[in-house]
Structure formats: structure tokens, C-alpha cells
């Protein structure tokens, strides 16, 4: 029973990324640009003819998305994989489901691996429900005979009997989701990989997904589960792996790992990000640690954008260690403040006074937008320790998330006014 089904040894994956060399000159001469382009063109042509990956820029750097990953998963285990954006979670799943090859190391897998895909991947809108069941089933790795055997079950689960011969483009979004999930749920692989699918769909559907997944694990199958939803991870997973910067930062029981994750970086009050060219991004986030002791949140979001944002809008969500969102705010909740020309870079400040929250560790997610469009989000990037100082680290635990005073009195029944 306790067989090892996945064993990863020294697994690493690197990407090559191109950089534009800055030669330390104040201005760019046309001559240099021409020379550089000619050089690039020669290299690109060579790479193209020899079939190598072609890179932009003129300096190439190796970037390790995964570095020396070692872990084992036993049969029937539900493994939660958590970590910040860019920690390597998706790359790890991609390697495990063979979409991309590792650069070093090896993984041994026993049994069929199937991924619960983003709902509707591999559906064709022009085809009927019946045809799409066959199409999607084969894409997920089922044989035609297997699909034929489970066909009635799938249809019953999805509750689409009456619309089997209707093109799915005429389906309501609810029917679409149900059908897609029904096919995936009847896949019956030995190892199921689930990547953030719970982010889509309504609450009802998420519940159904979670139910199906715990059913799968009860049947003794192995589940790998990646999510930012700590409540869901805690509810489903038995063991956890915490990834940070491409390496394993912690393993153990899921509760330990989540606590570790929430506490990670509690000391750092500033996080920097790489600005992406071509779209507005968050470049830095900082929080005033001193103010947090008295439950005040002072947040600064530094951003840069290729075009002026009119106006730049920031947002924040605090998540408790147990995974639930407890509080959030963003500029669109409030009156619109126009700044004339708009800003291409700058700071968005957020000040929240006397947050009525229980003392403890929270994580903040940060979001950048303008009045009409969302641009960037950094999930769980900052640790926020509310109401606790070095000298007074422990305070009595309350119930729930709110710290809201109530007046209590006691007296005899006769004296009720």
C-alpha cells in the first residue's frame, strides 16, 4: 500500500533567457544599433537553420526554474504543492506531466498520470456534446473503448442528456463546465495532477470538484494538488511541499508547511519584482512593520508602465493562515481620483487604520490596475504580522478573524431594565 509512486531525484530545469546588453552609454548611436542588429540577425539565422531555440537580446543567461528537487510521493497520498508566484510550481507539474523535459535529474513514476486541465481545453465549439466527450477523452489519454464503456456515466454526471447532439457552442457556461469536468473526473488515473482549476467556476462547481478529488484520494489514488487556496489545500492534502525560488523550502505535514509558508519572509518588509516590458507591472511592494504592531497597515505599491495609467489603482487582500480571505480593499471601491496626465511610474499608497483583525500572521496579495483593466497581481507576496511586537509576541487567541470589542455585564434577573 505504501509504495512510492513518484520519486524525484535531483530534478532541475533551466531556461535560457536573452538580455539586451547595456553598454553604459548615455545615448544610442544608429551605427551601434545597426551593428547589433546585424550581429543578432546572423546568430538568429544560424540558430534557426540548426533548429536551436532562438533568443532575443544579445546576452544569454541561464535561469533555473527548478533546482535539485528531491521528493517522494506514496500511493494514496494527496500532496499539496504551495509557493509564491514564480517559485516553480507550474514548471514542476509540467515536468511531471511530460509537457517539458527536465535539464538534469530524473523522476520515476509508476502508473498513469493525468492532469485535470483548465476546463474546456480540447473542446471544439462546433462539435456536439457527444463528439466532444470522445475528443476530450482521447486528449486526456483514454482509449475509445474505455470512453464507450464510461459514456453513460459521464453523461449522467454532467446532466446533459437532452443536449448530447447539440454543438457545445450553444451550451450554457454551466453545462459546458459540467461536461468538461465529467470527462476528466471519469479518467481514473493512478496519479491525478490538479493545477489551480478551482480558480474558475462558481462556488457550487468548486465544491463539486473538491468532493470528487477527495473521493479520488479515498479510492487509494495519488493526487498532486497545486493551489493558492490554502483552505482547499489544507482540507484535501495530507502532506505538503513548499517551493521557493525553484528549490524545496520545506516538506512535512500540510499544516506545518502552510504555517511555514505564511511565516516565510515575515521579517522582510520589501519585495522586489522584475518589471516586464510591454505591460504595466508591480516593481516593488513594501509594508511598514512598525505600524502593524498597532494594527495599522501602511502599504506602498511601486509600479511602472509603458503608458500612463489614468489613474493607477492598487488593491490588497489579506489572507489568514487557514487560507480564507479576511479583508480586502482597492481603489475602485472608492471615488475616482484623476491625475490629469496619468502616471507611467510611481507609488500607490494604502493606509488602513485600526484593522479590527485578530493578532496573528496574514499574507497579503497585491494587485495593479487602472479604472478599466487589471494588469498585474502578485499572489501571497507579503507576510503581515498584525498586533504582535518583539516584546509581546503572544496574545490570547480570539475566535474567528475579527477583533471587535463587546461589553459584557452580569447581574440578577430582577434588575433588567
Amino acid at each position, binding site marked *: 500500500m505504501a509504495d512510492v509512486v513518484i520519486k524525484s531525484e535531483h530534478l532541475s530545469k533551466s531556461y535560457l533567457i536573452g538580455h539586451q546588453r547595456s553598454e553604459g552609454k548615455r545615448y544610442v548611436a544608429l551605427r551601434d544599433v545597426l551593428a547589433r542588429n546585424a550581429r543578432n540577425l546572423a546568430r538568429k539565422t544560424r540558430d534557426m537553420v540548426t533548429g536551436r531555440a532562438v533568443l532575443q537580446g544579445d546576452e544569454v543567461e541561464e535561469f533555473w526554474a527548478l533546482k535539485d528537487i528531491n521528493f517522494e510521493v506514496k500511493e494514496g497520498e494527496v500532496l499539496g504543492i504551495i509557493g509564491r508566484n514564480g517559485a516553480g510550481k507550474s514548471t514542476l507539474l509540467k515536468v511531471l506531466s511530460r509537457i517539458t523535459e527536465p535539464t538534469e*535529474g530524473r523522476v520515476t513514476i509508476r502508473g498513469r498520470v493525468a492532469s485535470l486541465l483548465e476546463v474546456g*481545453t480540447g473542446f471544439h465549439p462546433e462539435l456536439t456534446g457527444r463528439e466532444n466527450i470522445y475528443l476530450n477523452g482521447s486528449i486526456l489519454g483514454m482509449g475509445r473503448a474505455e470512453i464507450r464503456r464510461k459514456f453513460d456515466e459521464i453523461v449522467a454526471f454532467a446532466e446533459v442528456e437532452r443536449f448530447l447532439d447539440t454543438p457545445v457552442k450553444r451550451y450554457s457556461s454551466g453545462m459546458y463546465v459540467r461536461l468538461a469536468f465529467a470527462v476528466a473526473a471519469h479518467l481514473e488515473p493512478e496519479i491525478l495532477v490538479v493545477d489551480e482549476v478551482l480558480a474558475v467556476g462558481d462556488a457550487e462547481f468548486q465544491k463539486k470538484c473538491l468532493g470528487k478529488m477527495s473521493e479520488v484520494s479515498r479510492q487509494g489514488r495519488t493526487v498532486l494538488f497545486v493551489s493558492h487556496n490554502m483552505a482547499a489545500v489544507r482540507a484535501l492534502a495530507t502532506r505538503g511541499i513548499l517551493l521557493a525560488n525553484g528549490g524545496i523550502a520545506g516538506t512535512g505535514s500540510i499544516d506545518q508547511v502552510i504555517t511555514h509558508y505564511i511565516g516565510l519572509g515575515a521579517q522582510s518588509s520589501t519585495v522586489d519584482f522584475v518589471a516586464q516590458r510591454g505591460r504595466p507591472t508591480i516593481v516593488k511592494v513594501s509594508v511598514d512593520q512598525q505600524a502593524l504592531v498597532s494594527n495599522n497597515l501602511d502599504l506602498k505599491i511601486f509600479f511602472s508602465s509603458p503608458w500612463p495609467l489614468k489613474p493607477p489603482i492598487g488593491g490588497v487582500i489579506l489572507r489568514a493562515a487557514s487560507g480564507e480571505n479576511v479583508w480586502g480593499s482597492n481603489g475602485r471601491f472608492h471615488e475616482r481620483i484623476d491625475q490629469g496626465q496619468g502616471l507611467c511610474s510611481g507609488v500607490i499608497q494604502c493606509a488602513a487604520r485600526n484593522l479590527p483583525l485578530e493578532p496573528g500572521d496574514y499574507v497579503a496579495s497585491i494587485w495593479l490596475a487602472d479604472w478599466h483593466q487589471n494588469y498585474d497581481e502578485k499572489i501571497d507576496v507579503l507576510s503581515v504580522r498584525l498586533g504582535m511586537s518583539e516584546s509581546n509576541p503572544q496574545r490570547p487567541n480570539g475566535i474567528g478573524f475579527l477583533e471587535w470589542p463587546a461589553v459584557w455585564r452580569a447581574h440578577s434577573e430582577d434588575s433588567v431594565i
Partner: protein
Amino acid sequence: MSDSRTLVIAPGLAERQYWRDLWRYRELFYVLAWRDVAVRYKQTIIGLAWALIQPLLTMVLFTVVFGKVAKLPSEGNAPYALLVYAGLLPWQLFSTSLTGASGSLIANSSLISKVYFPRLVVPTAAVAVAFVDFLVSFAILVGLMIWYAWLPGWQVVTLPLFVVMAFLASLGPGLWITALNVKYRDFRYVIPFLVQFGLYASPVGFSSGIIPAQWRFWYSLNPTVGVIDGFRWALLGGESAIYMPGFLLSWGVIAFFLWLGIRQFRKMEKSFADLI
């Protein structure tokens, strides 16, 4: 759990299991091919009519321009319309399968970035649509032969060989271009140009017999010359002789492009999921 189901992922291993994997995923090939055909003919009347009208009108145009206006000779006493159509059939087979294969990876990008399977399945399945179109257009040929009361000779039984030749001719460049397309989307503009250019550069509207003898060998560097000559030989019987050195050269070019296409495709395949 039996050891036959143990899978090892390590650098370079997928390379060695490649052809076995390809065989294992043949079901996916059938399903993807069936999907492309089903979608193509979903709006039945229009889909079918398109495959009929297009070659028919092109045939009429070419017969008038090359046969009547330019007064080019036919082969033996074969009617000019039949000569044109026997060239048009393989040309369309070649060009639609080339177009389908070269656009296939981009059209299936969501699959490629989310599911593992040997990527070679996608362009080869896309080619199947061209074959169904070919069968529809073939019905017109039968109609034309009845109209001209033309009975093909024993050579007609070799026709499947030339159909395969047309597929192989399109698959080589198709694989190469679809792989390049993943990184450089500008390669999609190459195909419409190539197809338009090739329609006149290949002996579709005229017999390859009118090419001056000293150029005929080099003309066969265009692999469709061999394919079209083969089709005409099979359909028009002894009236159209195959020029052997050129025919072999066409096969050589086809084999070279097929080797190049598969090699380049395999080389770039590993990075598809990262690039698309």
C-alpha cells in the same frame, strides 16, 4: 503495480522512446484527424460545395487560358480539360495538406501547452482533411471521364502510389514550417505565397512535355512535377509518358525534405510547450 507501467522522466529519454510513444498515441491521431474532418464538413452543404466548385472553376479557367487562348498542346489525344484536371487534383492535394500541416501547431496551441503527446501527431492528423477533400474532388474527375468517354488504362491501379507521394511531398516542408511557425509567426505568410506561386510554377495548366528538353531534369527539382506527371500517367494512360530521370529526382527531393522536416521538427519539439 507492474513494472511495465513505470515511467522514467530524464533528459534525453523522451528522445529514445519517441517512436514507441508515437505508436501508443495512434488513437489520438485518429481522433484529431476525425475532429478536423468533422469540423471542416460541419456545415455540410457549404463544405462539400466548396471542395467541388473550387477545382471545377480553376479547371475551366486553365483550360480556356492555356488550351484555347495560348493554344498549348495536350498530351497525345487527351482532352485538354482532362489534362488540366489530372494535374489540378494532385496539386490541390499537395497544397491543402501543406497548408493544413503548417498551421496545425498554432491552431492546437492550447493542447500543446497543457497535455503531453508526441507532437508529430498534430501535423500528420491535419493532413487527413486534405485527403477527404481529395476524395470529393475525385468525384468530378469521374464525371469528366464519363463526359469525354475516356477510359483509363491499366495504369490507373498505380494511382494510390502517387497519392502517397503527394502526401510525403507536402509533409516534409509542412513539418519544418509548422515548427518554425511556433517561434516565428511570420512563417504563416510563406505558405499562401508558396501555394500561389507553385500553382503556376508546377505543370498544372500545361503538360510538362512542353518544357525544353535541356531544362526538364532541373524542372523536376520541384517535387510536385514528379507527382503531377505520375498522376497524368496513371489517369491518361500511355498518352503521357513519365520522364524517368526527372521522376527519380523528384523522389530524391521529397526524401530530402522529409528527412529535413522530421529532423528539424524533432529538434524543436522539446521547446514547443515553452514557446507557444
